């Protein structure tokens, strides 16, 4: 006899539309941001260098890899099997990005954040707010997407 479905404990009812909206928003942000940066990795490497945190070869490697990681996270957030892992990764990316922005602000660096690729220069304060909002949304999703909601194998 299989265990009763945990569906009713998984944020159903009024929470479901809100969670769905948050999920799509978080996925959308990562997909768009990743795609814009993947379009011009040289410009993104330039932006990373301006943070004065990494040697140039590391900035190049990150500029090539991070956009595709963001796209991968954006897609994985939408799939139930990879959702929790993707949300944890999204949160780690948000925290890393916040730390980078904060150190740039503390050092008084005059830079464009490079969040959405070149040509979309936004101030540090605006970028900090966006990153904080994204991190908050990710934390909420992690809290309301318990493990029991992920597809599981019923015991025989």
């Amino acid at each position: 006899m299989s265990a009763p479905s945990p569906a009713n404990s998984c944020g159903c009812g009024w929470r479901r539309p809100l969670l769905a909206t948050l999920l799509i928003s978080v996925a959308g942000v990562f997909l768009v941001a990743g795609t814009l940066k993947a379009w011009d990795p040289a410009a993104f490497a330039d932006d990373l260098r301006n943070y004065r945190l990494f040697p140039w070869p590391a900035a190049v490697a990150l500029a090539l890899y991070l956009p595709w990681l963001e796209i991968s996270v954006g897609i994985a957030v939408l799939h139930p099997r990879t959702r929790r892992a993707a949300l944890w990764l999204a949160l780690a990316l948000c925290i890393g990005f916040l730390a980078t922005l904060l150190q740039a602000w503390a050092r008084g660096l005059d830079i464009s954040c490079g969040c959405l690729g070149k040509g979309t220069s936004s101030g540090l304060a605006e970028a900090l707010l966006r990153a904080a909002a994204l991190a908050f949304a990710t934390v909420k999703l992690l809290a309301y997407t318990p493990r029991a909601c992920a597809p599981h194998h019923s015991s025989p």
Partner: protein
Amino acid sequence: MPRILRPLALILLAAVLPAAASALLHPRRPSWLSDEIPAHLAASNPTRYLMVDARPATDFATGHIPGAVSLNEDAWDALFPPFLDAWDGERPILVYCSSLSCATSREVAHRLRTEAGIPEVFVMEGGWEAWISAGGPAE
């Protein structure tokens, strides 16, 4: 092994192949070689480059590297022709702005590469402050 590790590894690995493809094939892939020249190196051989001062006109008037040409984004259209007159078409360009935290030299260097099609454009690390600290001449 926690269940989350497998999907985590999958997401991380899924980005590796397109990233590698970008590194090899992307038309806008970054060069692995840095375009920054430390100020002390530039100061040891200043005539090797055509110096381009990306700071505002008032800063340029206060003091600049001898022989430098002023070229900033505020007055690009007006300053670009004199820059072209000063450049012999062969010397590499070295752009500087005020300090390490200033990014305008990078913006000017980017425009010179993309709009003017000049391939050998470098940026002085640390800018004017680093040049002075390295004992570079000023006029």
